[in-house]
């Protein structure tokens, strides 16, 4: 069925985030992308012009497009993640504009966690500063597949190729210590629009794509893991219809596939019951299907009547996950009350929330040197460190490096219900041993 009567529509989505320090020109860059790609509407341009008369001395300020809250406009800063949308004939884009102040690192993690690509902005005059290292380290930690280093304000260094190469060398000095596979360096001026959408006449020495050109063409290898089926059960679908006999006995397990592919007739292991069953039917609103894959949302009907509820996980037999109460993870601490060893938190992992206690603080990442500092006294807001946890019930999980969806968690502080940490699990020591399980019904 054709989607639209107009031009060919975008067929995929690229999610990216922008990070940089105050005054690196992030908001201006996004404003420029929207403005030059003709994604702005007349009333938005009018509103820009209205605010230019009030605060900008008549000069249009592209940053006003993204600095949405009054508090931000008054202080000229971005205080929270703002999302922007635009589409070109090739792609649909979701931008998370994340602020660069030291105290808002948690927002960068929020904006970047689901990104395909991160843009790190660097002021050409300043070069690499601690913020650049911090943002790059967070992008690496979150395993964002693609990175763009946008060397901004090149007009203020006379479009010097030498300066560009110098900044590139500054990055390359620490990049090998981080696990990032794809990095692109682009010299640009967001204020004047050079190399953002249109190629710049000032950079004859740069043969690469413009920023938008790169965003439109970068190969987004599937972010989603297609090996090792995982279905965290969100909701038990039981119509209990007294009138419709066909539905009376329907019992399905609804969830979003967090990894792999599932087929009708496939054998699955159900956690925490530890029982093997078979897929009888893959039910969707649009009809029964033979096969479904990550990240589709489906409802599975199983052959056996097993005790499965929200928080249970159905997994493929050929790629078994870990199952353990003892966990080790890298965490980004997001709350002003520091992490306390010995304190209990709620841990939400997939659709499963469980009580945990922090048993050990192993090390902390020094953001200036990117070295690990062993046995730190505490983990404060915006710190990244390695911890050990013990859960009240076993978690069924994969390492974050293998699967972002089954390898990630958040910590919630009891009482305040604040989300205090984002965690990335280390690979399990052993995978689940099915011989200890009751295999047959």
């Amino acid at each position, binding site marked *: 069925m054709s989607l639209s009567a107009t031009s060919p529509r975008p067929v995929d989505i690229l999610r990216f985030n922008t990070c940089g320090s105050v005054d690196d020109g992030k908001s201006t860059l996004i404003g420029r992308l929207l403005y030059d790609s003709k994604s702005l509407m007349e009333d938005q341009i009018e509103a820009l012009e209205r*605010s230019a008369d009030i605060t900008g001395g008549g000069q249009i300020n592209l940053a006003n497009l993204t600095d949405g809250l009054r508090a931000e406009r008054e202080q000229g800063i971005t205080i929270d*993640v703002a999302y922007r949308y635009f589409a070109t004939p090739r792609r649909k884009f979701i931008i998370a504009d994340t602020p660069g102040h030291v105290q808002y690192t948690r927002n960068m993690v929020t904006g970047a966690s689901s990104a395909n690509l991160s843009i790190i902005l660097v002021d050409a005059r300043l070069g690499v500063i601690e913020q650049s290292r911090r943002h790059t380290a967070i992008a690496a930690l979150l395993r964002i597949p693609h990175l763009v280093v946008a060397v901004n304000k090149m007009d203020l260094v006379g479009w010097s190729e030498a300066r560009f190469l110098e900044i590139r060398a500054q990055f390359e000095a620490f990049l090998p210590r981080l696990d990032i596979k794809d990095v692109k360096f682009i010299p640009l001026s967001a204020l004047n629009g050079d190399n953002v959408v249109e190629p710049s006449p000032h950079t004859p020495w740069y043969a690469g794509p413009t920023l938008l050109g790169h965003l439109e063409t970068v190969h987004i290898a599937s972010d989603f893991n297609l090996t090792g089926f995982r279905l965290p059960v*969100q909701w038990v679908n039981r119509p209990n219809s007294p009138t419709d006999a066909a*539905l009376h006995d329907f019992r399905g397990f609804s969830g979003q596939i967090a990894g792999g592919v599932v087929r009708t007739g496939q054998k699955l292991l159900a956690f925490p019951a530890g029982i093997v069953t078979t897929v009888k039917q893959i039910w969707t609103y649009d009809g029964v299907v033979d096969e479904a894959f990550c*990240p589709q949302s489906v409802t599975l009907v199983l052959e056996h009547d097993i005790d499965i509820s929200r928080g249970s996980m159905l997994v493929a037999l050929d790629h078994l996950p870990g199952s353990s109460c003892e966990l080790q993870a890298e965490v980004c601490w997001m709350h002003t009350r520091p992490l306390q060893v010995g304190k209990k938190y709620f841990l939400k992992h997939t659709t499963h929330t469980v009580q945990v206690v922090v048993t050990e603080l192993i090390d902390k990442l020094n953001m200036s040197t990117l070295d690990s500092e062993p046995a730190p006294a505490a983990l404060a807001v915006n710190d990244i460190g390695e911890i050990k946890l013990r859960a009240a019930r076993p978690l069924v999980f994969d390492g974050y490096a293998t699967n972002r969806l089954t390898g990630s968690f958040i910590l919630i502080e009891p009482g305040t219900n604040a*989300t205090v940490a984002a965690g990335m699990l280390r690979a399990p020591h052993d995978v689940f041993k099915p011989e200890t399980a009751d295999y047959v019904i």
Partner: protein
Amino acid sequence: MSSYHLDHLQHLETEAIHIMREVAGEFERPALLFSGGKDSICLLRLAEKAFRPSELPLPLLNVDTGHHFPELNEFRDRRAAQLGAKLIVRTVEDAIARGIATPAPGEVSRNRLQIPTLLAAIEEFQFDCCIGGARRDEEKARAKERFFSFRDSFGQWDPKNQRPEIWNLYNGRLNPGENMRVFPLSNWTEMDVWEYIQRERLEVPSIYFSHPRRCVRRGGQWLPVSALVPPKLSEEVRDLVVRVRTIGDIISTGCVESPATTVADIITEIAAARVTERGSRADDKASEAAMEDRKKAGYF
């Protein structure tokens, strides 16, 4: 292209279904805000996709300002009945009569008065979560909104103190009296909504399509002439062929001249549009921070 590929609408759909099911899994008494507008029409289809073959595990809630387009309310009631869903309607009129909402002297718009009416309905039914059809691309303050938007016991949004949202892990924990607003369409644009309506062959209220209507020129817009909007002698009145792009109250929703009679026509029109959809809403033009202020007070 591999067969394991989802296009942009399928991505947005599975993300929204996941969020709907998280609501069903994490909250005791959720409700879905259904106005009959295009965004909430998509929400209802997503709820069907999330929960069928079961009944929808949550009632529909609408705050009727008394200034709705009649076509909208007719559609709202009919669609709810088709789905066998429970529809709760609470009116601003009633809230005023009961002293819950108090109009300012001379205040005609019911926009602000929706807030106390909604909060009273939440309290009456002890809803701990309301799913809404707001999208981040609508407005600058909306662009800062989370999928799970925490509201304190006064229904207020605190933009400086939002819970971080990481991966697809949503923290739905609440203390008594607190409330969550959940926006499954956060990442959808106006274009996505219409493409989804087209793909799913969803019915929408007739006022989205062009029709003859008497309009009055006011504040740079064509407002529909009605008992609530009588033209003044000095104002220009014309019989036009128009449609609405976004549905607010009949007193503040500007009509746009348009020949669009099908969803495909509307998609073509939006692709060429030079004004955002909220550009035709007088309530958002009040000041640059109009939406921010209303959201802080408990507007959805």
